[in-house]
């Protein structure tokens, strides 16, 4: 009898273990399955909706058309690279022949000038957005710390920030373009003007959220930490380095994530408007092109833009986890 009971008990504990592991599995499964279901439903609705919309350029692209285009765009990129490699090889052979005939000949190396592929445009956009973003951070974080530390400076600068903050950077674009073409004149420019235009536009929109968040973070430092610094008589520079900067890292990162998101959106628009190379130009070119494939290529670009935006935000979050002591604020 007792053995029976014991058996039943062990069976019971086994079964609770089973239930628990099932519960755990189902929780994990939920985290994986639910997004999958969401995506599947979205794809179905999308393809139905796409099927029933007719435009002058054919049907609205559905998921299938986009999938085909992803393949196409990748192949185009590969074949363009092959062409480029072939071009350089031809050039080298030609030059070698000339030198064999005429040893004093100085060979001219010409750069390949094929059209930029979708992947090249992605690269250009990423480089532009990061350059503009970093330039903005270099200006905004020290400025934000100064504004946060000094009430006087805050009162003086705040109206300017408040007025410029709501301005769409696209309104700046014509001004930036004109100023850059007037000021940035050098016989051998290190950067293309179009790149400088896009970068400054991105910088202008990144600046304000970063300045505001940094200054708010700095102004809201725990008074106890400031008192510790005062009791120790830390010199101002050490105070900023050892107390202010680490204490406001969470706020600084909030500002950086906010502005990187805005920057990515603004960059695409700026590239479309100003015909600067990048993903925005790709979209605009396809729109002007007006072939039967254009819409599906644009749709592909839309999805890729979304993915890159998402990845940029994740990357910032990872960076924040790496740098910040406040793991709580990095979880959101």
């Amino acid at each position, binding site marked *: 009898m007792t053995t029976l009971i014991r058996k039943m008990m062990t069976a019971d504990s086994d079964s609770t273990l089973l239930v628990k592991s099932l519960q755990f599995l189902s929780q994990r499964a939920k985290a994986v399955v639910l997004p999958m279901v969401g995506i599947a439903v979205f794809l179905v609705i999308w393809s139905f909706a796409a099927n029933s919309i007719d435009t002058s350029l054919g049907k609205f692209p559905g998921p299938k058309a986009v999938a085909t285009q992803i393949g196409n765009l990748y192949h185009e990129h590969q074949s363009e690279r092959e062409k480029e490699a072939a071009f350089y090889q031809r050039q080298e052979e030609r030059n070698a022949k000339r030198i064999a005939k005429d040893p004093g000949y100085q060979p001219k190396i010409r750069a390949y000038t094929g059209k930029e592929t979708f992947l090249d445009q992605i690269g250009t956009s990423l480089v532009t957005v990061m350059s503009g973003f970093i330039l903005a951070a270099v200006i905004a974080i020290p400025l934000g710390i100064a504004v946060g530390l000094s009430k006087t400076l805050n009162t003086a600068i705040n109206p300017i920030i408040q007025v410029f903050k709501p301005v769409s950077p696209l309104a700046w674009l014509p001004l930036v373009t004109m100023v850059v073409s007037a000021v940035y004149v050098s016989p051998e420019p290190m950067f293309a003007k179009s790149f400088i235009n896009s970068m400054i536009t991105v910088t202008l929109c990144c600046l304000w959220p970063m300045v505001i968040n940094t200054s708010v973070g700095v102004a809201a430092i725990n008074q106890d*930490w400031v008192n510790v610094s005062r009791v*120790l*008589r830390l010199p101002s520079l050490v105070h900023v380095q050892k107390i202010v900067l680490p204490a406001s890292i969470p706020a600084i990162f909030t500002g950086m994530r906010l502005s990187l998101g805005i920057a990515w959106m603004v960059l695409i628009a700026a590239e479309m408007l100003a015909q600067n190379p990048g993903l925005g130009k790709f979209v605009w070119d396809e729109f002007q092109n007006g072939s039967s494939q254009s819409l599906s290529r644009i749709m592909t670009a839309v999805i890729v833009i979304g993915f890159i935006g998402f990845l940029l935000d994740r990357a910032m979050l990872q960076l924040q986890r790496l740098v910040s002591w406040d793991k709580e604020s990095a979880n959101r």
Partner: protein
Amino acid sequence: MSILLDISKIDMVFPTPKGDFTALKEVDLKIKKGEFISLIGHSGCGKSTVLNVVAGLLQATKGGVLLNNKEVTEPGPERAVVFQNHSLLPWLTAYQNVELAVKQVFNRKMSKAEMQDWIEHNLRLVHMDHAMHKRPDEISGGMKQRVGIARALAMQPEVLLMDEPFGALDALTRAHMQDSLMEIQDELNNTVIMITHDVDEAVLLSDRIVMMTNGPAATVGEILDVKLERPRDRLSLAQDAEYNRLRSAVLTFLYEKQRKVENIPAQSSSKKTGETGDLQKVDNTNDVDVA
């Protein structure tokens, strides 16, 4: 012994939108080297204000504080503060928190190796050497307060200022910390001003207990000399007649001579009693921890 710290007739007036608020009125206290002073009084009576003036974090409106006959005008490491909520920097480990202080205070007076020894020595003193490379969020409240004390001790202050150092801790941890503090005090014989709410803590630790009257315009009410033998043991003292006499003297001061009178907002009092906006006499017993 000569006077180390002279708190000389300080007034503290805070400007408010409704006019000036006098927090302290003629607080006068002379402290000898090596003395352990407790400041006790109901909450809001200005104990922390006194401490902050001594620390230099606040400037007295009238009067002043002299340390070794020199006027205190700004905060400094010779008047180290142990704050109520530890105020460790959360991005630094226990060791680094102490290191920040040591590097600043003993800059160029100690070699790197000496500094390391000194930091570790102070952490050992508060029994935190086993967790010195942990961050504040990885250790308990009592341990954080220990590190806070180690940081203050590492500055080798002339006066150690403690603002309710154990107020946020549970009773058992608090008793433990008090024992630790007595142990350290036996060894170092620091000059200490400690703010407390706890009558037993005041009697157990202090050489003198300074009882403050209620604010506004709070001042020193009575000073009680505690002439109990050291080292003191809390268990044997519980039966000690002198200990109990001192304890009840403090309690008498707090509950009879300085009964807390608070102005209850008109709304709640009219609800309870039907009267409007009168002064209500309230016995605010929760303020002082008798247990």
